[in-house]
């Protein structure tokens, strides 16, 4: 009986050690990515608010008070100004005072230019324009969802999410072993910075467990959708009835479009409208249904440009479980379903998650200080690493907004891919050195 018990205790200890090793190594190799994603995510939840401030301060873009939106003339004048435009999307103001935005993709010499024109939706007046790709709002989104690295960056972020799931679950599994007789929320002050950091790591980790798990799972899902070729279940392609050029030149009365939308889809709060240029001769109004937690603008009504007859309606409430599951992920991840209060909560919890990575590194540096014979203090090393990462993020933001998106993307490709190759080479060289160069210990 005693033998069985001793064996069971030994097995449990062995399992505990293995789980701790998984937590340690996955945190060590992916901690920086997780910290970067948590910090950028904490800022990214405020993209609409930040963008609104920039629009007001830098472009003096705002809408005059009006009972209805008026923007027909502005759209017509823009399509006359750019007759060979590739796509046209209108972004409606989400709150009173916000300017409307007309997004036009225009053929440039070598590539495409994506312009965003601000429109006073009360007076139907164009207020100014910017290149959307080089905007702060685009920087904040792209740095979080793909680290400015195209599809590969998106997968990279997805794998970061998987690693975050692993560290969160293994963290929970070893929590009991590490707490032992310690009580929640006790911090052992006065016993050295290593223990203080370790206590904060456990305390904040367990306190934000559900949030971290949700962010990690949804982040992994969103990042790896492309990798697993998961198709968007709401996709719809109307059949072409004319040439693309003729379609682009066919205009509609937008007030009538919005009126028809309200009649066929009364619960839809319109967020954007797209006028087709692919020959289908349609306009699509996308928006939210108040009180539901789903991806932004997922509900849609497509109308024919001729007679404004509905040709397609996507109402998430009427769709099967798979559709709801698919579209709940982004809303849960970005936290834009509960107003500013929820965004602040998400941002704070996101910073807590970033702190978990940082405190994990501090504890690691303390634990290995003697063995590695490091001269710098653990806190100093962590601080230097953190400053370098923040500097890279700030430089990428400056390059993206002042020089251009593609230059920033090239810079981040060098940093991320170079860093990845560097880590792999470092690990390989360390392994080979240990295996072949270091003297073997003499036994006996």
């Amino acid at each position, binding site marked *: 009986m005693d033998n069985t018990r001793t064996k069971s205790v030994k097995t449990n200890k062995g399992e505990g050690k293995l789980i701790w090793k998984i937590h340690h190594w996955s945190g060590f190799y992916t901690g920086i990515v997780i910290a970067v994603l948590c910090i950028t995510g904490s800022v990214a939840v405020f993209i609409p608010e930040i963008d609104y401030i920039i629009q007001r301060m830098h472009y003096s873009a705002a809408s005059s008070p009006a009972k209805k939106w008026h923007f027909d003339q502005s759209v017509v004048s823009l399509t006359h100004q750019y007759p060979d435009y590739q796509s046209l999307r209108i972004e409606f103001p989400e709150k009173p005072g916000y300017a409307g935005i007309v997004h036009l993709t225009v053929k440039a010499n070598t590539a495409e230019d994506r312009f965003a024109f601000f429109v006073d939706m009360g007076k139907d007046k164009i207020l100014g324009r910017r290149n959307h790709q080089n905007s702060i709002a685009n920087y904040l989104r792209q740095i979080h969802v793909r680290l400015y690295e195209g599809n590969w960056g998106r997968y990279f972020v997805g794998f970061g999410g998987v690693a975050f799931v692993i560290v969160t679950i293994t963290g*929970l599994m070893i*929590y*009991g072993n590490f*707490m032992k*007789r*310690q*009580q*929640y929320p006790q911090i052992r002050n006065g016993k050295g910075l290593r223990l203080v950091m370790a206590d904060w790591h456990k305390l904040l980790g*367990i*306190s*934000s*467990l*559900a*949030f971290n798990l949700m962010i990690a799972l949804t982040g992994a899902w969103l990042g790896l959708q492309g990798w697993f070729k998961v198709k968007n279940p709401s996709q719809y392609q109307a059949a072409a009835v004319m040439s693309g050029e003729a379609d682009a030149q066919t205009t509609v009365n937008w007030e009538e479009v919005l009126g028809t939308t309200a009649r066929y889809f009364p619960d839809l709060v319109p967020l954007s409208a797209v006028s087709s240029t692919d020959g289908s001769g349609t306009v699509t109004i996308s928006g939210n249904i*108040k*009180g539901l*937690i789903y991806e932004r603008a997922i509900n849609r009504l497509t109308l024919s440009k001729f007679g404004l007859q509905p040709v397609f309606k996507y109402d998430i409430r009427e769709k099967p479980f798979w559709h709801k599951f698919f579209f709940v992920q982004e809303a849960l991840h970005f936290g834009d*379903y*509960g*107003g500013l*209060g*929820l965004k602040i*909560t998400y941002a704070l919890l996101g910073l807590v998650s970033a702190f978990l990575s940082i405190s994990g590194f501090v504890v690691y540096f303390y634990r290995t200080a003697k063995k590695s014979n490091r001269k710098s203090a653990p806190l100093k090393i962590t601080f230097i690493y953190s400053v370098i990462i923040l500097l890279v993020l700030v430089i990428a933001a400056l390059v993206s907004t002042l020089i251009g998106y593609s230059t920033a993307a090239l810079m981040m490709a060098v940093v991320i891919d170079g860093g990845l190759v560097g880590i792999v080479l470092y690990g390989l060289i360390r392994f080979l050195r240990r295996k072949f160069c270091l003297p073997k210990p003499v036994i006996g």
Partner: protein
Amino acid sequence: MNHHKLVEHYLIPTVLFCLNIAFVHAIYRLATRPMLVDFEIIVCLFAVLLLCVALYTKTRWLLIGSSVFYLFLLLLVIN
């Protein structure tokens, strides 16, 4: 399993897990129905309060009860 281990290693993490969700749930409901004081908001806020009290007092049955209560509410809301 002794009392300390059950409470500190299992029940408190469970309560904290529920509290994360309940807190976000309460903010979401308050934001989407600001002018409407309905049953769900009241019960949700009560659940948050109960979970906090359970966490503070660390009473075994309160920890279990508050978690089960909130998870039951969540199931009801989802359905």
